[in-house]
């Protein structure tokens, strides 16, 4: 990974004292390469490398660390600063039900994560109701119903209804009637540049006032991750992010880009297709993964 590349680049410097400007720029080129190969956004890489450079200039090359290790240590710390400092908890409303809304691009993993969240939060004592607001994708409602059956968690839907705002509203009312204290709304995948569908999300938000809007993002997303996250955040407002398919081998730089640009916490990660694969986000593991 980056550690080995930096060792090779800077191996002549052991115990030499301070790192020179040339040593630093050679090392920064390696850091930039590693982050771009990990799909971190170009602008985020630029800012990040500058921050690392500031710290690296004048850094003492300790006897106990080779200069390569020294730089990696700085990079790791800076990644942790960017990725960390956030909570993986879902804020439970003082007056139930707590309403969660999942949004994101097509195929990101929203419906599956809705099921995972329902299971995970039931384990911590909640009584979830899943609400099927994807009226467009063939068999999307059935997909959520199958998950609900597997978990023995109720799913609210209105067959033949093409109005997700109505479904969301009635779903929340149904939760209150049934004494379910947690509503998880699954929405249809959509493009951040689809004005009509982004307006639909705003209408759902206005109708049910979610306590948390979670952006679901595929871990293998490339440079476009920043456009998507910024767009959803500025148009709709998001409270956190779920990064999915992290059981793959993608480095996942999109996670760093999104956190850096929106400042919103990454709350959970999806680590598989089964419903018990939702995990709390670990910034240190993500940092190591991004560095390869």
């Amino acid at each position, binding site marked *: 990974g980056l550690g080995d590349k930096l060792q090779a680049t800077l191996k002549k410097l052991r115990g030499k004292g301070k790192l020179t400007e040339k040593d630093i720029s050679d090392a920064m080129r390696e850091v930039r*390469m590693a982050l*771009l*190969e*990990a*799909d971190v956004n*170009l602008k985020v890489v630029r800012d990040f490398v500058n921050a690392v450079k500031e710290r690296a200039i004048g850094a003492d090359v300790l006897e106990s660390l080779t200069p390569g290790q020294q730089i990696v240590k700085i990079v790791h710390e800076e990644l942790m600063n960017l990725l960390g400092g956030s909570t993986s908890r879902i804020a439970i409303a003082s007056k139930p039900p707590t309403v969660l809304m999942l949004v994101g*691009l*097509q*195929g*990101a*993993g929203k*419906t599956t994560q809705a099921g995972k969240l329902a299971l995970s939060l039931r384990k911590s004592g909640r009584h979830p109701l899943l609400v099927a607001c994807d009226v*467009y*994708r*063939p*068999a*999307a409602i*059935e*997909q*959520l*119903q*199958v*998950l609900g059956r*597997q978990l023995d968690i109720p799913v609210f839907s209105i067959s033949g209804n093409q109005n997700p705002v109505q479904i969301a509203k009635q779903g929340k009312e149904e939760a209150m009637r049934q004494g379910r204290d947690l509503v998880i709304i699954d929405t249809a995948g959509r*493009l*951040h*540049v689809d004005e009509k569908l982004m307006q639909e999300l705003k209408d759902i938000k206005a109708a049910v006032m979610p306590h948390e809007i979670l952006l679901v993002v*595929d871990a*293998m*997303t*490339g*440079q*476009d*991750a920043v*456009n*998507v996250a910024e767009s959803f955040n500025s148009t709709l407002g998001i409270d956190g992010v779920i990064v999915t*398919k992290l*059981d*793959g*081998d*993608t*480095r996942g*730089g*999109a996670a760093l880009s999104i956190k850096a640009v929106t400042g919103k916490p990454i709350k959970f990660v999806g680590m598989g*297709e089964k419903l018990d694969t939702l995990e709390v986000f670990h910034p240190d593991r993500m940092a190591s993964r991004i560095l390869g």
Partner: protein
Amino acid sequence: LLSGRKIDEEMYEELEDLLIMHDVGVTAATNLLRDLRRLVKDRKILDGEGLRLLLKEIISNSLGEKKPLRLEPGTLNIFLVVGVNGVGKTTTIGKLAQRYKEQGLKVMVAAGDTFRAAASSQLEIWAERAGVYLVSHADGADPAAVVFDAVHSARAKKIDLLLVDTAGRLHNKSNLMQELGKIRRIIDREAEHSLREVLLVVDATTGQNALVQAKEFAQIVPVTGIVLTKLDGTAKGGIVIAINQEQKIPIKIIGVGEKISDLRDFDPQEFAEALFE
């Protein structure tokens, strides 16, 4: 942005940034720019506009000629559709089914995803929309059994084109990749010489991992083409340039929306043009 400006180093850096921002990746971008510098010298290009047109030409040429999907008339053709989770395999099959049905072919689709919730129901709806035959088993059935069943049914019904849907799978899951290998062997054994295309579906929003996907899937099945989906978004799918450079797999089809008609043949020149928009 580049026209009217004389060529300088800053211009090459801007072009490298543009390529990276479109997920072409550092290695492939470096290769393209090396070719660009050489041709700028050979052709004595002097200004920014010339530079831009030349890079477009290099990209377009690297992607090769337009490659249509292969279909032999008068016999059973099988397309196997594979890829990681959520990229658009099932939807693409619906689109392909409609296209070939409209061309007068007898089309059948096989619901090879027996794992994911409501996967067969999803394909069933597409089959209905396209007006084509469907072979599916109950959820949890062995996907190999569905494929076996579909191939025999296709031969009995004298089907021209059988589209086989498979479950999304991450390439680092060896058991799932082995399952895919088994599906391919069944097709080859039960319908020798009928497997015409193995299409790897790649989501245009995917970054560098698509390179690994192409490499790993091609080890297990003979990938003959890439379908690049979701190009109606803001991502340009530049990673296919890198896939093409490294794996030499042609891009054949693009997905440009969620409707059944949102399918187009891949056009290298249009693709190269779109990178610069």
